[in-house]
C-alpha cells in the first residue's frame, strides 16, 4: 500500500472507531439516563408549580429533539406552561424555569441551576425577592429589561442581567410559539 494511502486509512479507521464507540455510549448509556433525569426533574417542578393537571405535555423541537416547553393540560385545555430558559452569567449559564398561566402571566420563576461566584451571583438564590419581581408580569405585554422593568441585585449585576435576559428569551419564545396558537 502506498504511504499516503496508509496514512489516510489509519486516520479514517481511528475516527470511525472513535465516533462509533461514542455514539454507542451516548445512545445506550448516557442519553437515556440524562433524558430520564431531566423528565423526572421537570415533572417534580410541574407537580409543584402547576398542580392538578390531567397530563403534562412535553413539547419538543422536531429538529433538535430538545424539550422547548411543558404544557399542563386539564379537561382538554392548556391551563399553564413552563418554559426552561437560560442565559450566560458570570461562571456559567443561569438556568431558569418560567411558569405562566394560560394568559401569559408569570406565576413563578424557579432557579434551576447556577454556578455563580459565592457571595456575589449566588444572591439569585439567597435573595428570592429578585425572582419574585417577575411574578405577575406578563410574557406577552411586558418587556424584561434590567434596571428598567426589573431591579438588579446589588453586587450581582451580571447574574441579574443574565436572569432577566433568560426571562426575556422565554417571553420572545412564548409570543412567537405559544400565544394565540395554543400549544403547537
Amino acid at each position, binding site marked *: 500500500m502506498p*504511504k499516503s494511502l*496508509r*496514512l489516510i486509512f*489509519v*486516520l479514517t479507521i*481511528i*475516527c470511525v472507531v*472513535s465516533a462509533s*464507540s*461514542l455514539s454507542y*455510549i*451516548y445512545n445506550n*448509556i*448516557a442519553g437515556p*439516563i*440524562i433524558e430520564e*433525569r431531566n423528565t423526572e426533574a421537570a415533572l417534580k417542578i410541574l407537580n409543584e408549580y402547576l398542580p392538578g393537571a390531567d397530563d403534562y405535555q412535553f413539547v419538543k423541537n422536531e429538529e433538535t429533539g430538545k424539550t422547548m416547553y411543558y404544557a399542563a393540560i386539564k379537561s382538554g385545555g392548556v391551563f399553564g406552561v413552563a418554559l426552561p430558559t437560560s442565559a450566560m452569567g458570570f*461562571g*456559567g449559564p443561569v438556568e431558569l424555569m418560567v411558569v405562566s398561566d394560560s394568559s401569559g402571566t408569570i406565576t413563578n420563576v424557579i432557579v434551576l*441551576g447556577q*454556578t455563580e*461566584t*459565592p*457571595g456575589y451571583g449566588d444572591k439569585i438564590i439567597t435573595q428570592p425577592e429578585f425572582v419574585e419581581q417577575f411574578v405577575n408580569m406578563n410574557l406577552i405585554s411586558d418587556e424584561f429589561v434590567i434596571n428598567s422593568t426589573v431591579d438588579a441585585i446589588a453586587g450581582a449585576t451580571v447574574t441579574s442581567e443574565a436572569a432577566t435576559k433568560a426571562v426575556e428569551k422565554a417571553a420572545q419564545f412564548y409570543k412567537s410559539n405559544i400565544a394565540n396558537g395554543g400549544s403547537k
Partner: protein
Amino acid sequence: MRSFWQDIRNGIFTENPVFVMLLGMCPVLGVTTQAVNGIGMGLATTFVLLGSNLVVSLLRKVIPGEVRIPSFIVVIATFVTMVDLLMLSYLPDLHKVLGIFIPLIVVNCLILQRAEALASKNSLGRALGDALGMGIGFTLALTLLGSIREFLGFGTLFSITIIPNYIPFSIMRESTGGFITLGLLLAFFRWYSIRKQRGKQA
C-alpha cells in the same frame, strides 16, 4: 527495566506533573476552589490518561509517524468525551461545577505529552504504569491545592466545616488565590529541595 512501582513513584514525586513538570496548569488553577473538585478533575484526567496511554501504546506500531499527533488527539478527545458523557450521567453536580474544564482536558498538555513521549515508544505495562503514576500525581496535586484554597476560602474541608463562624479569606475562591497558592507551594518545594541538597553537602 523499570518496575511498575517506580513509575508510580515517579509520577507522584520525581516528575510530578503539576509541581515539577508544570503541565496542565489551566485545570490546576481553574477548578481547585474546593478539594472535591480537585479530586473529580484529577480522576477524570487519570481516566483519560489511562485510556489514551493504553490505546496509543497498543497502536504504536500501526500509527505512522506523520499522522501521529492528529491520531493521538482523536484518541484523547474520544476518552474525554466518554468522561464528559459518563460524568453528566452519574455525577451531574460535579459535571456542572467543572463545566468547561471537562472538554478542555483534551488540550491538557500533560496527556498529549505522555502519549508522545512515553506511550508511543513503550510497552503496554509501562504505558499504564506511567498513566497511573501521572494521574495519581496530578490528582494529589489538585486535591492539595483544592484543600488549601477551600480551607482558607470557606473554612471547610471536603465541605465539612472545620472552623465554625469562619470569616472567609475570599480571594482564595478567586483566580488570585489559585495563582498565589501555587506560587507559594512551588517556592516551598524549591526551598525544601535546596535545604535537602545543602544537608547532603554538609
